[in-house]
């Protein structure tokens, strides 16, 4: 039986008729063609599919699309504003925090959720925050550097740049 769901993705409202078996990540990638969100494992382990659901980093392979009815979703495509990259995106480029790039969208989304709530994290806190995101290339070192570097820029522009991961209570 089809269900009609309406959700906001990166500021645009979408209404679609879907089956309950459809995962949120499948809705994003296959129905809405937002392929920036990746599927690494489809078993909740790797974090490549991480998106913000109502302001919280969520593994989109472990949520039904019907559960996102009414939700506000931000994917990696929603990080840049007016073609200006988000500080986390610039920091990943600057610090060479990616090689193949497969894990990058999920890691950046997790980092944004984390940094908007912890403006001055220690390296240990950064490593704890990205426990749910696996990278098979970089060895994590430059990813931690990038998140630390983004935190510095985000502190400077706090209040000017609207929050990406603001909590949405429904």
């Amino acid at each position, binding site marked *: *039986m089809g*269900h009609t769901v309406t959700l906001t993705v990166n500021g645009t409202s979408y209404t679609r008729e879907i*089956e*309950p*078996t459809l*995962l949120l990540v*499948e809705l994003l990638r296959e129905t809405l063609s937002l392929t920036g969100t990746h599927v690494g494992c*489809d*078993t*909740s382990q790797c*974090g490549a599919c*991480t998106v913000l*659901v109502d302001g*919280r*980093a*969520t*593994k989109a392979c*472990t*949520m*039904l699309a*019907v*559960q996102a*009815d009414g939700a506000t979703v931000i994917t990696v495509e929603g990080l840049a504003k007016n073609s200006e990259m988000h500080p986390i995106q610039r920091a990943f480029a600057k610090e060479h925090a990616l090689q193949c790039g497969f894990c990058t969208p999920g890691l950046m989304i*997790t980092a944004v*959720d*984390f940094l908007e709530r912890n403006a001055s994290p220690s390296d240990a806190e950064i490593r704890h*925050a*990205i*426990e*749910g*995101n696996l990278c098979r290339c970089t060895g994590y070192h430059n990813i931690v550097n990038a998140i630390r570097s983004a935190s510095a820029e985000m502190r400077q522009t706090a209040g000017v740049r609207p929050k990406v991961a603001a909590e949405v209570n429904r």
Partner: protein
Amino acid sequence: MITHPFTYQAPSTLEEAVEELGRSGDSKVIAGGHSLLPLMKLGLAQPEALIDLRRIASLRAIRTESDGTIVIGALTTHRDIAHDPIVRAKLPALAEAAGAVGDLQVRARGTIGGSIAHADPAADEPAPALAYDATIRAVGPKGRRDIRASDYFKGTFETALADDEIIAEVRFPAPAGRSGSAYEKFAHPASGFAITGVAALVTLKADGGIERAAIGVTGAAAAAYRATAAEKALAGTNGDAKAIAAAAAKASDGIAALSDLAASSDYRKHLVTVFAKRAILRAVTRARA
């Protein structure tokens, strides 16, 4: 990918959810979905109907009752529990256990009701539920029922909850007197689940010695349990390092410890005593602070 078809609904009241759950023998409630959806992907769970609790706002709150009982709605996420100021102040072992679940994303979706209902032997929150002597309030077609945590965990994925019951809330009595509590976990390096997790609650006498102790252990056996031998050994002592070590050494007494690739049963029993010692030590330090 989920291939087995099912129907889906998200009722807005607990009464409706109970009614829908009773309609078919093959229906299941879904909360955070972080245990159920992985099982459905593997085909290990194939419910015909899913009843989503997400619209039942009353299940999402944390509140304190007049007698001090802290009531945590079943839908409260691990993340919200870990960050809640009342839980952190009054039930630090629960805040620590919730904060140690999986990873940031898992904590954002997974719920205490789901964790308690699912009863994975390596789940974190059962340990503080036992140590604080929490009560699981379930609602079913015959009405409401309170189950003490010590009567609730029966075995691997096996509990005192009936198939037609829904957990509405988990009720934690406020620890009385001069007390302190803490949770210590030895996490599986890959899955993050507890190979061993120990929650300890101690209450002090006027002279600073131990009046009573309650210790909940997860990860080590088929079901989370109260380490009663260790509790008895600790009560009445002066609570110094020697007394704590002697009591902690009994925390795995009499259990049939799990054995797997991550830890043999002997190693697990050893880990329980080490993590019990750490948890008790921090609990006593907190009680004396």
